[in-house]
């Protein structure tokens, strides 16, 4: 299973829409953790589904992730992957002031040489995702940040940059092309 986790906050949605515009069905499972209220999640997912032919899903918990699908973490829930395959939604304490937290999702992965992991941190306030990306790097993932110069708010990717050895700093267009290359 190939798994890509994207963490995003303020200023991230417009980049996500650009990144996924025209993305075809790809042989990987994508999880987007966007900081947003619960009431916005379905609308965000609907907009994404208009841009990509991947199967966009707002999970209810219990789903087994599959290639070709893009999962949007619902607002007010942490999204945890159990055994790298089953989505568990939790209403535990906020982490880094937010729920869903990027760190929670990324650190729920377990090292497994059968899987290829990728992590990307986009625009956002604060430092959510920094620990998560560092953890992903430690278990063998390729990790990336959005070029801070292209971010509306750059503190999240900058925090991730300080936390680990980033494989590449990418513009939104380069992130789009990187995702396309995963076919």
């Amino acid at each position, binding site marked *: 299973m190939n798994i890509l986790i994207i963490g995003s*906050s*303020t*200023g991230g*949605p*417009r980049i996500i*829409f650009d990144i996924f515009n025209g993305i075809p069905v790809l042989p990987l499972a994508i999880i987007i953790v966007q*900081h*947003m*209220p619960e*009431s*916005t999640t379905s*609308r*965000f997912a*609907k*907009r994404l589904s208009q841009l990509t032919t991947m199967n966009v899903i707002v999970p209810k918990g219990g789903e087994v992730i599959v290639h070709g699908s893009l999962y949007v973490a619902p*607002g007010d829930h942490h999204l945890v992957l159990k055994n790298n395959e089953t989505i568990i939604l939790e209403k535990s304490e906020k982490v*880094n*002031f*937010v*729920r869903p937290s990027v760190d929670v999702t990324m650190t729920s992965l377990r090292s497994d040489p059968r899987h290829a992991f990728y992590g990307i941190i986009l625009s*956002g*306030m*604060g430092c959510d995702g920094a620990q998560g990306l560092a953890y992903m790097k430690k278990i063998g993932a390729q990790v990336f940040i959005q070029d801070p110069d292209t971010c*509306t*708010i750059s*503190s999240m990717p900058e925090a991730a940059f300080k936390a680990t050895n980033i494989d590449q700093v990418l513009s939104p267009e380069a992130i789009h092309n990187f995702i396309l290359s995963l076919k």
Partner: protein
Amino acid sequence: MDPISDPERSHPVSGLMVVDDDEDILFTVHSLFKKRPFPVLLAHSGQECLNYLEKGFKGVILMDIMMPGLDGWETIQEIVNRDLMHDLIISMFTAKDVPDTSLDHLKEYVFDYITKPFEPENLIALVNDYITMLE
């Protein structure tokens, strides 16, 4: 009184609200969007924004930060406290481009951050995108 800023008018299901104490900004943004197929409300303060929300406004909010009375962040906190955060996309709309880390607890309610001065074409495209998302 400009009818679009009249608090007594009937309120739309979805539209654009600009919250700013600067009349020039309100005028400029209104000019940009007046021919769009969605209503535009102009709020001169955080309190006026809350009044519109209490009356049922849904849509995109461009929120200035530095305003007399409730500032932009305090207004968002009040939106959350009053459970008015439904069918809204809030973007900060400000000359201040680096948010204070003490405001991290409100970041999940802020979809975007648009700095002034702004490029009209970019603002129109962004607002149209978010309005589309809410439809």
